[in-house]
């Protein structure tokens, strides 16, 4: 599963060298010497965002370091990404019209920036908005959560704002936060089962109603027997890659 990430890290390294963003490089160095080898991966989009991926165990320490060392007192948001492609198909080709592409977990999927090898990845953005340590800074912390044990330490003791974000993340992805004052449902009714934002959670609205765009131009009524070339699938048809050829 992790083969995709090795070339990913290599690609990161070489595209970083052309213009090194020394500002973010500085923040990265501050964090690396604070966390040591807990910093597993990092990526800099020059002039835009600094991603730092830390090991799951030192998630709390990473946030603490960002807060003390970089002065990131502003808690922007915390969420998760489910990297598995959706087995329910893409865009409008809902299961009713097109055979479901069964997803086999063994097939590899690429994870995003700054590497990562598990399906669930936690994401948190902290910022130093008052420019206390002389300079405004912001860092995007990432960490990987193994599929079988979605547990991590809660950031509520550090930031009050983490309370709601973690409740939403627990509700939508099923990530357990140890030490959270009250993991209750935030948006969904109390007897809701399942975690909606996981990719394998079906979006029922799309499965119930047949997609009106699936209909195609019927052949000429008089010449039903003569050979009919597939429907005129011009390039726009590529959007729904599964449905062009039934006539």
């Amino acid at each position, binding site marked *: 599963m992790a083969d995709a990430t090795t070339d990913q890290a290599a690609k990161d390294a070489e595209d970083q060298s052309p213009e090194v963003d020394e500002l973010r490089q500085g923040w990265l160095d501050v964090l690396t010497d604070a966390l040591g080898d807990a910093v597993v991966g990092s990526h800099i989009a020059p002039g835009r965002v600094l991603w730092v991926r830390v090991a799951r165990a030192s998630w709390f320490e990473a946030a603490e370091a960002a807060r003390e060392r970089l002065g990131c007192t502003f808690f922007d948001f915390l969420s998760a990404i489910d990297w598995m492609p959706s087995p329910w198909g893409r865009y409008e080709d809902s299961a009713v019209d097109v055979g479901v592409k069964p997803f086999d977990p063994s097939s590899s999927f690429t994870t995003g920036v700054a590497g990562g090898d598990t399906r669930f990845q936690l994401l948190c953005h902290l910022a130093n908005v008052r420019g206390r340590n002389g300079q405004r800074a912001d860092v995007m912390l990432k960490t990987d959560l193994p599929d079988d044990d979605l547990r991590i330490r809660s950031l509520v003791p550090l930031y009050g704002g983490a309370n709601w974000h973690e409740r939403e993340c627990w509700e939508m992805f099923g990530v357990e936060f140890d030490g959270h004052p009250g993991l209750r449902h935030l948006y969904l009714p109390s007897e809701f089962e399942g975690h909606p934002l996981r990719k394998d959670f079906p979006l029922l609205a799309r499965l119930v109603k047949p997609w009106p765009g699936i209909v195609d131009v*019927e*052949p000429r009524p008089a010449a039903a027997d003569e050979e009919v070339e597939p429907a005129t699938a011009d390039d726009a048809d590529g959007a729904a890659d599964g449905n062009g050829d039934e006539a």
Partner: protein
Amino acid sequence: MAKFPAPKAPGLVKGLGVTLKTMMKTTFPSRGMKTLIPAPSIGAATVQYPHEKEMPAPRARGVIALKEENCTVCMLCARSCPDWCIYIEGHKDTAPPRRPGGKPRQVNKLDRFDIDYALCMYCGICVEVCPFDALFWSPEYEYSELRLADLLHDKDRLGEWMQTVPDFEPYEAGSEQKVRKVPR
């Protein structure tokens, strides 16, 4: 920090002043000599809807009009509609050749083109994505129905809206957009 404006006259009195001034402006709108004659219906900012109507801007997205001749049943609008509210059925047909003696042309004929305005959210993606300029916006907004099912406009109802489509306006100075023409 900036100095905060301490109210000169006590705020309570100034507040009364604002409401009184507005009352005077509404009942006696300044119309030169005739200001002294109370005319609240001119001074008020409201429009008495059934009797006076306010024309929306020419670009307002009120209802979608269909120019049937231009439609080649390419299904692009039905596919790109986020609400799935455009239902199209068409069939292939032969049309007389352009040049005498030429081969009969393969043409798509439109059987059904319904837009369900109960679902439509007026985003305008269909009008924008139509490559053959068959769909236009008209600022018409008075087509409410008693029954929800009547909000499904069929192809000739959409054709009727074509007359209400205004011409495209000229652009502001400095713009490089060319003014499109509405095929009447």
